């Protein structure tokens, strides 16, 4: 716990711990092992994210977990300047497997971010919860 007298903002934005539930426990367990999973429907052959136990396209329950290769490209992004812990970048990254997923771009020069820039997966600790998938340029 920080001292009440400390007025300065924390240097690093705390990553809100993901709320794990029965449906997504396997995803967050895999995250502990550095594996990014997505849902894949064996009935209609569509990948989806965020992952569910059914397919949001055809509503089949023949869905399996698959591991993403961790490569993708920037679909869109915004550098947030209204932040007490300094700027951070929210983004949608298009995985090579197809789904566009909400994430942050980290550990890179925000001025070099551009749409379609290649990115790769990095994991960051959350504040007391499972690790969270982020991406960085390159």
């Amino acid at each position, binding site marked *: 716990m920080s001292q009440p007298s400390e007025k300065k903002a924390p240097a690093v934005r705390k990553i*809100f711990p*993901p709320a794990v539930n029965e449906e997504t426990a396997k995803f967050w367990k895999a995250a502990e092992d550095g594996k990014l999973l997505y849902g894949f429907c064996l009935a209609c052959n569509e990948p989806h994210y*965020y992952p*569910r136990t059914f397919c949001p*396209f055809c509503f089949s329950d023949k869905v399996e977990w698959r591991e993403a290769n961790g490569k993708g490209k920037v679909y869109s992004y915004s550098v*947030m300047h209204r932040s007490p812990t300094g700027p*951070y970048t929210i983004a949608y990254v298009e995985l090579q497997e*197809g789904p*566009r997923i909400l994430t942050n771009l980290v550990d890179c020069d925000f001025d070099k971010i551009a749409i379609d820039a290649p990115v790769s997966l990095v994991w960051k600790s959350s504040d007391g919860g499972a690790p969270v998938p982020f991406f960085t340029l390159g």
Partner: protein
Amino acid sequence: MSIKGKAYVMGAFEHPTREAPDKSTPQLHAECARGALADAGLSKDDIDGYFCAGDAPGFGAMSMADYMGLKNLRHMDSTETGGSSYILHVGHAAEAIAAGKCSVALITLAGKPRTGSGGPRGGGFAAAPEAAFEMPYGGTTHNQYAMCATRHMHEYGTTSEQLAWIKVAASHHAQWNPHAFLKDVVTVEDVINSPMIATPLHRLDCCVVTDGGGALIVTSPEVAKQLKRPKVKVIGAAEAPKGTYGGKVDLTFSGAAWSGPKAFAEAGITPKDIKYASIYDSFTITVLMQLEDLGFCAKGAGGKFVADGNLISGVGKLPFNTDGGGLCNNHPTNRGGITKVIEAVRQLRGEAHPKVQVANCDLAIAHGTGGSLGTRHGAATLIMERE
């Protein structure tokens, strides 16, 4: 069955406050309800339908109905689509009236994000299925809408200057509104030079944060006939959700692309017929994308459409948000839907400020996006006609 011509907006009230440190949120709801009833020339016990959304404190419609003493209710609806809820509620009220379920519907919105604590966001969001996959990333309305702007600029060449024109137009209107939170006329340069909030959106690309609220009274044709106020007829209404679709995210359009055509078809008119447009303006990019999606210009041409004062009453082709909108006038409890309907009603009645009143304003649209353009939102379109 169509709702065209089956209901009338006969009462509209925008609370004059923008900072209400000494009032409670339920109190603001009640004051708005009293204002709308007085405007319509009706009394509390005439109300037999009540509509509210997530800003209404307590147990859906029950707490507010009990608090206000609405003892003759036979129809209730607390559909929540964020800031667009109240536009959607007019359509739902028209449906209920057309089906004989009520004849005098009250819709209220109120809250105090400026001086009070918290907004309508309840604990339910933490249990949402998307929460674990979104909350760690620091998403806010600012940076989520900003991602739409980034992508729009990439695909269509939209510029910050073009977006700025939307704020400029709103400010030209707000200067005539004594209640507007921001009354100063601003320039494109003022917008571009204001501090960056979430790239590419500047502070002046964002709406205001205000306390306050509003209320509407929607009635059956039989009730409307007995009232002394100008008659504003509901002729088209539609709604649509839009989301992230299992990862098939497309940030270049809003749910207006679905709700707009349905509402126009029901009304039997086209965007060219519209004399005045209330367009939800949480951010400048919100306006630009909705105008495209509603069909006021081609997809991707929104930047050119809004530039050079085209949205300024008396100057451009499509007068919009003549009260100053959420960008300058009022965005009570971070929800701008009800004020969109209220200013459209003023325009159709001929009761807007003379400096911004549209001549012969017989057809108006009110459209809103509630929630987040960058993740999931509820779109609602309402088309009204002066009778």
